[in-house]
């Protein structure tokens, strides 16, 4: 039921939500998260581009297993995960998560879970091109691990 896409192409949030909800009258709430490329320093931007590398053979498998966990945990009526790879500029979309359910709490919780787990369990790596000309691999943040862990405590 879930739609999982890994692609260099950008996505259209409105079209993805429309596709997920078309003809449905059982959905009451749709949660959505979009991750975008951000300059590290507003005013004096230092990130000129972001490159997303991934492990193709593992990526869709990892995403499918994360989605399966969410579907197991919440009564989802629709789920979309799109992750871009390749080179992107500041302001561009990186990732889209949509989770639909009869009630809002399940939709919102599943959305947060999906992006938290995706950030810590799916084989993507970000490299930033800096204004200085340097290329830097983004380091994993401990707060991301903590965000993912909190779903296991419950």
């Amino acid at each position, binding site marked *: 039921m879930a739609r999982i896409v890994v692609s260099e192409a950008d996505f259209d949030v409105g079209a993805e939500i429309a596709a997920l909800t078309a003809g449905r009258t059982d959905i009451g709430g749709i949660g959505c998260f979009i991750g975008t490329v951000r300059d590290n320093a507003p005013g004096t931007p230092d990130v000129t581009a972001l490159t997303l590398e991934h*492990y193709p053979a593992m990526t869709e498998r990892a995403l499918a297993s994360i989605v399966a966990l969410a579907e197991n945990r919440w009564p989802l009526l629709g789920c979309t995960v799109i*992750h871009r790879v390749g080179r992107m500029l500041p302001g561009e979309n990186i990732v889209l998560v949509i989770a639909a359910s009869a009630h809002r709490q399940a939709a919102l919780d599943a959305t947060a879970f999906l992006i938290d787990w995706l*950030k810590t369990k799916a*084989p*993507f790596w970000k*490299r930033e091109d800096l204004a200085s000309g340097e290329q830097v691999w983004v*380091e994993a943040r401990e707060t*991301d691990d903590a965000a993912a862990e909190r779903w296991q405590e419950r």
Partner: protein
Amino acid sequence: MITILYFAWLRERTGLSEEKFLLAAGTVTVADLVDILAVRHVSAFQARRAIRCAVNQEFADPSTVLNAGDEVAFFPPVTGG
């Protein structure tokens, strides 16, 4: 024979996306493999605690046992999303 894949800065520091490796006789774990690779790729395997591993596209532990035909991937902690 196993296939070893490198991603992100591990790919850059080893200078390789992929290499083949003939498994020694007996039980070989991910930790054993890292010991061997650390000799060959000194700078890449210096910060061992910052390296994650997947065997056949599933996250693996240092204690995971390797078998002929396995695809073993080494990479830094993931940073997608």
